[in-house]
């Protein structure tokens, strides 16, 4: 075979095999193989079909909150006199992970927040609720969202029910998907102030602002509205960037090629399984929380309390239920430290801490790939939790305190 033809054959073979990889999803197959080998619970136990209502839930779970909040503004605007209660927390609030023995779902499953909302609506037609939850939500993100909502009368709640969870103190930073809130100039200015304030979470805010600016300049470059050569070098303002944009758009016309985004999830999930199965490092592996993320999380929670006081919004703090089969704390000191902190925050808030940590019995929790799920509960657990919360937190009295401060 002539050499240039050989080269063409190598190239063609490479592209063909790449298409095959994109089609076959080799890492997904490997993950499935590992799951089968380690006997994980059937996929239906992680319920896909959960109850969905854009008027009462941020249905994108933090992936695209701006349209969700627009819906909320419209809905709350239509119920101007109603008492507004906002539930804030992580994926526990929007996930149903069925426990052993629980039947296959036959319709949309409701979480404890949905069930409480129903109870409150039955109690008084003049109460509206909203669930603002996202997976792995960090406290700097909660602060971010609340600053945004407090700024806008149409989104400002009368009361907030905020979940405190040891795992949430492990996470930090501001996710890309909520940067779009910075389009609001007033909010942008407030975030910029917080970023300059030298608070422990300021770095996260600063980083978020930087990513937002980069995105905006990339968008400007892509739409051809750049302002000439930048005084300092920015890759997104170059002709090369515009060419790259065209190339990507062209390639994205191909459906197989668009699957490349899934390839990363496949690989990450496969690596995650390797971590779980071979290294036995689970998300629930007990650990001590110290360092920068903890400091930033503490400062965020304290500032959330202050923000609510300044804005005269009632704040109810509750500690999230945890699977008794899983100890998230590496040492007794970790537990004590966490408990001290949340109690201190509650006392600064001037109210009790509603402690639900040991509320749900071990038999009602879901199962992860290779063990008990520390965070996500089954059907019965959600019902029990809703009952407990409804009985303990005096949400039906929020209206008495709402007092027209909006």
């Amino acid at each position, binding site marked *: 075979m002539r050499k240039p033809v050989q080269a063409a054959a190598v190239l063609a073979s490479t592209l063909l095999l790449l298409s095959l990889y994109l089609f076959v999803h080799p890492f997904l197959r490997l993950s499935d193989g590992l799951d089968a080998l380690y006997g994980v619970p059937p996929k239906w136990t992680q319920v896909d079909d959960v109850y969905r209502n854009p008027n009462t839930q941020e249905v994108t779970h933090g992936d695209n909150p701006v349209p969700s909040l627009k819906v909320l503004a419209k809905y709350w605007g239509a119920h101007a006199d109603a008492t507004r209660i906002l539930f804030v927390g992580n994926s526990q609030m929007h996930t149903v992970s069925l426990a052993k023995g629980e039947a296959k779902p036959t319709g949309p499953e409701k979480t404890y927040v949905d069930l409480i909302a129903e109870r409150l609506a039955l109690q008084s037609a003049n109460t509206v609720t909203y669930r603002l939850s996202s997976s792995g939500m960090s406290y700097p993100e909660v602060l971010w969202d609340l600053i945004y909502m407090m700024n806008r009368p149409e989104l400002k709640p009368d009361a907030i029910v905020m979940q405190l969870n040891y795992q949430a103190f492990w996470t930090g930073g501001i996710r890309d998907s909520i940067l779009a809130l910075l389009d609001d100039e007033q909010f942008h200015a407030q975030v910029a102030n917080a970023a300059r304030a030298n608070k422990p979470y300021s770095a996260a805010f600063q980083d978020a602002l930087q990513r937002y600016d980069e995105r905006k300049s990339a968008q400007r470059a892509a739409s051809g509205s750049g302002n000439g050569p930048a005084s300092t070098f920015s890759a997104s303002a170059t002709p090369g960037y515009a060419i790259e944009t065209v190339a990507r758009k062209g390639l994205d016309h191909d459906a197989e090629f668009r699957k490349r985004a899934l390839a990363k999830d496949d690989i990450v999930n496969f690596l995650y399984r390797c971590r779980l199965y071979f290294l036995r490092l689970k998300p629930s592996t007990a650990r001590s929380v110290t360092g920068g993320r*903890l400091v930033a999380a503490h400062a965020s929670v304290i500032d959330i309390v202050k923000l609510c006081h300044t804005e005269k919004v009632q704040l109810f703090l509750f500690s999230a239920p945890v699977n008794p089969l899983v100890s998230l704390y590496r040492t007794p000191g970790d537990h004590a430290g966490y408990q001290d902190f949340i109690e201190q925050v509650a006392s600064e808030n001037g109210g009790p801490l509603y402690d639900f940590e040991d509320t749900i019995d071990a038999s009602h929790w879901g199962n992860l790939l290779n063990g008990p799920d520390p965070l996500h509960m089954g059907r019965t657990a959600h019902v029990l939790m809703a009952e407990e919360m409804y009985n303990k937190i005096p949400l039906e009295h929020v209206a008495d305190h709402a007092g027209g401060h909006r």
Partner: protein
Amino acid sequence: MQFNSYSYLILLMVVVPIFWLLPSNLRRWYVLGISILFYASWSPVFLLAPLALCAGVFLAAVRISRGGAREGHWFRGALLYALSFLVFFRYQALWWPAMSAVLHGFSHSPAHTALQIAVPLGISFYSFEAISYLVDIRQRRVQPTRFSDLFLFVMFWPHLIAGPIVRFRELAPQFAFKKQFDMALMMRGLDRLILGIVQKNLIADPVGSWVDEGFVTQLAQANTTIDNWFLAIGFGLQIYFDFASYSNMAIGVAQLIGIQLPENFKFPYHASTPADFWQRWHMTLSRWIRDYLFFPINVRFQAAPLPLYCSLLGVMALVGLWHGAGYGFVLWGVLHGCYLVIYRIYENAQKKHWPGLEHSRVMSGFWKVFTLITVIAAWVPFRANGYTQATSMLKSMFGHLTFGVTLPLNFYLVVLLVSAYTVVEPYLDKLFTKTDGWMAQTAARASMQMYLLRPALYAFGLLLFLAFDERNTQFIYFQF
């Protein structure tokens, strides 16, 4: 246009076949044209810098090559001219405050941003190449033939932005483009290109995003000793794979059009001594420094110990400064200078007093560990956000020990995983070469290798590249 971008890979699929279809006398103009377009894809204005540099240097080179009484003047003038590009663009931080103060004194208090000057990409690299060209001309190792030779040497797109730093005499003969199409070289080029894009997207960028988080000033104070060691190792891995990936892509792409660029990395974290590290890390910069700075200085002192040690420290401080006008870079260079001096002192003492230690396993093990630890520690000032952070991290790493881990668990796992890969990297390389040799022994195996196994590896590399593609990630060495 980034090396790890879709448009670049598509461009290569067009540019390389056309190159081989062209008659050899047109190829140099074609490569020059592509190089100009490539550089202009960052900013057409940037083109003025290499153009002006080459024009001045070529003019001086012609005068130098003619000899005569004024040769020395032309040489020194041209050196100053080439260096002035570096100082003007690269070291604005050094001269800008003074200039600003002068202007302020004259009541011109211009807005800083209005006079800030964009730094043309690759200026540190091609300024050094221009200087090496001048020295070679002066030493009569090369002759100035055509301006286009020099311009192509500087502009040759694979090495333009971030090296390898090449000598004119290495590249110019290859620019005749007389080589026949060589499938083996083409495959080696593809190997390097794919390896490079995978190293960049799969290793350097993900590690970098965690490292960035760990170095955030407000939060870094809470880092423990373990965190700081992992961050230093993480950054060491990030910068190695970032830069090595670029070099691999540069070398690979050059091979696709039959050009052989010099190697830039040779498993640097496997270095057995501090001196060995510099024969494995950014090898073309080390070579440049050695040939054009260190040797000329030391010829004068005939390797007397004290001047040798002082020049080592000074030269390494300059290597640090080459990366930018930051104290952290200089400190990094000085630290490496110290390591080299310590090793030289030991080497001299060992030769004189303890000749038996030359083959001692204990000592060679000691120097390996010493080199690894000190090289990793030196990355701290290089990366830290200021002097305070660097000193507090180093104190925590060597003195005030605190335990526990505060960064995301995956960060530690990824650093361990990448470290493990770095340990086995040379052995994998050998295995790969051996397997290649074995596959080439029969025609059937060679065909399977060429049309199935290699493409399967390339496709797998591309899959990883696509999966971990984060648009617009920069190479660290683009800023130098």
